[in-house]
């Protein structure tokens, strides 16, 4: 890699030993992918995937202490993934003990570090930082040093920004240095499609299932998806963006997709069309039967696979305002149709704080609260990351949550039926 004078000096220790180690990390990272140079980070804000103070992760917080002690701060402020705890979310005394004393017992320490490092605001803990109400939406062509698989794939695909699937810690180092190695999704060639995916479904495919199927097939490669515009239209409106948010999260958790193109819809596909497709691209055809196969093969690891659900989580990634109000409206309508006043299963909808604030101004907020639905800024994945949840029958319409925890996947309509008491 060719470093400029300033970068070489940093590597040689001109800004101290800790900065030299940060530089060495970034250079080795670039060398692993044959990067030829560093390019400036141009987005206004960064985003970090690390939002939790887990006892076992002390080496991470020690590393950040080392950086802070050297007087080093990122060149840009940043948002962070959702917090792991929210007192509003149902939990028993034993869970509270496990969460606070055994698992997230470094939360306070870490949040103090994030304040020093430059988190934008204390409420800016969300995986959906790119939502308009949160305000960390990069411009097309911006170079990012982000981590959080669902945010990276959204920024690349829907916003047309440029970001590799960086790991936690590495993303902070890019924000500190102000530049990142140029490879992969930062290059024109790296953004070309290795796959053509033909969607031939007779009904609108579930975003989470479609993303899961594609992720498992293409792994880290770039798919160019045809036929989805028939269901989503050709305008990137709120509905299309919400669908792509959930779809992308599934491609990134069941695979390692960092960028996808949707024909006639996402910015680069609209601009460049099929010229984005590599000549030797492979083809994957998806129909309803293929999606049913993917769904059928999801393992259910509940102790009793036929147990009645005890908790429902919706919103991984966090819900947009439109999604939240759509869910609220649907739940209230379903409860009325089923002659119920309260939800049949304790239910948590998760969303960013600024989205919750706007939602609480709507006519749905109070009746939904009365119906027993909790609206939280929590990270459901972090909440479920403990052995006690293994014995809890949790349902979710998030493929990402299903992938990483014992939660069972249900489609949105199945979840709605269950929580409104309409399921047979």
């Amino acid at each position, binding site marked *: 890699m060719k470093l400029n004078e300033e970068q070489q000096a940093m590597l040689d220790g001109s800004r101290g030993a800790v900065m030299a180690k940060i530089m060495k990390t970034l250079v080795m990272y670039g060398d692993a992918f044959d990067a030829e140079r560093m390019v400036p980070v141009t987005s206004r804000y960064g985003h970090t995937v690390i939002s939790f103070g887990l006892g076992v992760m002390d080496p991470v917080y020690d590393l950040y202490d080392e950086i802070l002690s050297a007087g080093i701060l990122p060149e840009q402020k940043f948002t962070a993934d959702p917090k792991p705890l929210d007192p509003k979310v149902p939990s028993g005394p034993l869970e509270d003990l496990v969460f606070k004393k055994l698992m997230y017992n470094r939360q306070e320490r870490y949040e103090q570090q994030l304040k020093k490092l430059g988190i934008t605001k204390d409420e800016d803990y969300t995986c959906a930082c790119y939502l308009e109400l949160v305000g960390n939406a990069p411009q097309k062509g911006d170079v990012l040093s982000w981590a959080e698989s669902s945010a990276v794939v959204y920024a690349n695909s829907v916003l047309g920004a440029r970001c590799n699937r960086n790991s*936690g810690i590495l993303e902070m180092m890019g924000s500190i240095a102000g530049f990142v190695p140029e490879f992969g999704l930062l290059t024109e060639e790296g953004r070309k499609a290795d796959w053509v995916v033909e969607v031939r479904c007779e009904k609108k495919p579930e975003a989470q299932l479609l993303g899961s199927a594609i992720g498992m097939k293409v792994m880290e490669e770039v798919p160019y998806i045809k036929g989805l515009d028939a269901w989503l239209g050709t305008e990137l409106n709120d509905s299309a963006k919400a669908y792509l948010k959930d779809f992308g999260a599934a491609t990134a958790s069941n695979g*390692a997709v960092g960028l996808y193109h949707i024909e006639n819809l996402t910015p680069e596909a609209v601009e460049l069309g099929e010229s984005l497709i590599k000549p030797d691209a492979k083809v994957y055809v998806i129909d309803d039967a293929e999606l049913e196969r993917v769904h059928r093969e999801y393992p259910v690891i509940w102790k009793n696979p036929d147990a009645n659900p005890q908790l429902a989580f919706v919103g991984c990634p966090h819900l947009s305002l439109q999604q939240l109000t759509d869910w609220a409206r649907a739940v209230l309508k379903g409860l009325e149709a089923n002659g119920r006043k309260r939800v049949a299963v304790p239910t948590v909808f998760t969303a960013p704080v600024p989205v919750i604030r706007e939602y609480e101004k709507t006519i749905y907020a109070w009746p939904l609260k009365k119906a027993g639905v909790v609206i939280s800024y929590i990270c459901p994945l972090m909440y479920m990351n403990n052995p006690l949840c293994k014995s809890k029958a949790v349902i979710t319409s998030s493929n990402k949550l299903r992938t*990483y925890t014992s939660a069972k996947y249900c489609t949105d309509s199945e979840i709605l039926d269950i929580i409104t008491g309409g399921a047979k």
Partner: protein
Amino acid sequence: MKIFQGRVVVPGTVTAEALVSHGGFNTLASYQMALQFGDLKAMGKDTEVACGDQNNPELYKKPMMGKALCLPQTIGSTTGGMILFTACALGKQPACMLFSKPIDSLAASGAILGDVWTDAVMPVVDQLGDEFLEYVKTGMSISVKENGIVEVHDS
């Protein structure tokens, strides 16, 4: 014995028993279970860091620590590199990571963070080719050399 030539990402030599995943290795899902009770047991004294990835039947519940992890690439959450770094910092890392394909950005992040910021030794070799993953079986003995040569012993 069969010999494969790869590219060195993190140098080092080691001999260890193979643990093979033909599907992508989901780092977060794999370490999730091991991380749950971190300071007590998780990456701790009496466990061997069992794989918690329910979607990976080849590895699920098998010990990963000290094994020669043979895989195509890693997948999943971008916490992956941070988790590998933590495993290295706590001395609970695999003996080595051997990739049939070019290494992915998350595994590279973790391996490099482990190399630069901890004392752990975890050689990483990539681009060993599809034949490597077709040949190697869990339980085989593997020797990694400095120059990216990987020897797979049949017994």
